[in-house]
């Protein structure tokens, strides 16, 4: 074991600090008094100075290259997002948002029509029926106009089957053109039924809107996360 290894830890620490010149004035004076009296301590100081000098004399090596940073090193102009899946999720959320918006906007006219006031709808139906009534009165022209009636039936049957059936009543009954008022009344009743049915369907819009809002929220959250990830 070396001389330094045989020293008490406290003495070793004091001598090491003494060599570095960091002892307080009082501690230094006390240690110097001991050094004068103890040749072993003086040798220990010499050994510590020797080690310190050996380390200080180690050659320095030049840096093998410059370690300066480029923009890319700190991710300044990284085109790719840090978390690509977030970008993908944002796109998906946005696409679903647009899709639900489109579905909702396309659904609205039909639903509005279904929930329109019955007299107004009846007036519309009456306007559409006038040519048919005229054809009915013309008698032999009925066969020619029948396909048009069938087309109208098909068009309306999709949305309002209960309404379209009575509109054909005059054409199905050539001998009772005067029953138009009755037919109109029936149409009004049927329109009311249709409106009630549409009212039953109305709650279906609520989940659609909720989904739309959820998707919009998801798109915003993913967007913010992506931006934060990019900044990191």
């Amino acid at each position, binding site marked *: *074991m*070396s001389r*330094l*290894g045989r*020293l008490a*830890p406290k003495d*070793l*620490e004091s*001598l*090491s*600090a003494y060599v*570095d010149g*960091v002892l307080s004035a009082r501690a230094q004076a006390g240690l110097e008094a001991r050094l004068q009296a103890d040749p072993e301590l003086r040798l220990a100081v010499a*050994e*510590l100075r*020797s*080690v*310190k000098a*050996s*380390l*200080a004399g*180690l*050659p*320095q*090596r*030049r*840096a*093998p*290259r*410059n*370690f*300066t*940073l*480029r*923009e890319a*090193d*700190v991710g*300044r102009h990284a085109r790719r997002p840090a978390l690509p899946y977030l970008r993908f999720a944002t796109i998906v959320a946005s696409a679903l948002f647009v899709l639900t918006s489109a579905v909702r906007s396309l659904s609205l006219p039909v639903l509005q029509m279904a929930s329109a006031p019955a007299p107004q709808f009846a007036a519309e139906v009456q306007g559409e029926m006038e040519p048919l009534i005229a054809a009915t009165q013309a008698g032999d022209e009925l066969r020619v106009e029948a396909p048009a009636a069938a087309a109208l039936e098909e068009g309306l049957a999709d949305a309002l089957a209960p309404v379209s059936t009575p509109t054909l009543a005059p054409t199905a009954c050539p001998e009772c053109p005067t029953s138009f008022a009755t037919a109109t009344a029936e149409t009004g009743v049927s329109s009311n039924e249709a409106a009630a049915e549409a009212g039953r369907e109305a709650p279906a819009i609520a989940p659609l809107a909720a989904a739309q809002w959820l998707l919009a929220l998801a798109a915003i959250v993913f967007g913010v996360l992506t931006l934060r990830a990019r900044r990191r």
Partner: protein
Amino acid sequence: MDEAALIAEARRGDLDAFNTLVLAHQTRAFNLAWRVTGDGEAAADATQEAFVSAFRKLSSYRGGSFRAWLLRIVTNACYDELRRRKRRPAESLEALEEASGSGEGIRAVDPLSSTSDDPEKAAEQAEVTRAIERCLGRLPEDFRTVVVLADVLALDYQEVAAAMGSPVGTVRSRLARARARLRECLESSRELLGGEKRLAEGIAQRRAAHPGEGIPKGRTA
């Protein structure tokens, strides 16, 4: 522009200002990394990683010695690099020593250390350097780091404490123990070297007394 102004500019994201700081500190940073890892390649990787990390962490710099703050990042990068490579620095230093013996070591990379005109003295210096490096490599990481910071890079106790993230009292006691261990290791090396030298002298004397003995055929004069 002084260091404080450069730091302020760099904190605002000015990479040129930061690179001026890099150029001012890179030699010290690299030498710390080299002495701690004992491997030039690992040291370069750790130094580069440390500067990237320092730029990103600039907002956490709270004043004081910028050099010490930076060297702490370098020290941590070295420990990470050592763990990543799972290599003991002593092995790397031995590799460096072998390279040095074949003319590719420290003296070859550092012309400042080969200024002696006396070949025998230069050889002695090289031997001492190798012995110190070998002993440094055998120290535990914390001990090696403290002596490199205090004695090789000549930082004061406060800076060493800041660079290691330890109290000054811990630095003081750790430095004393590290120096004692190094002294012991160097004494062992000297005894070993002395023994080798005596052995070499004995062989030379025997050859002089019995020329040709122990020398392969075809190579005798």
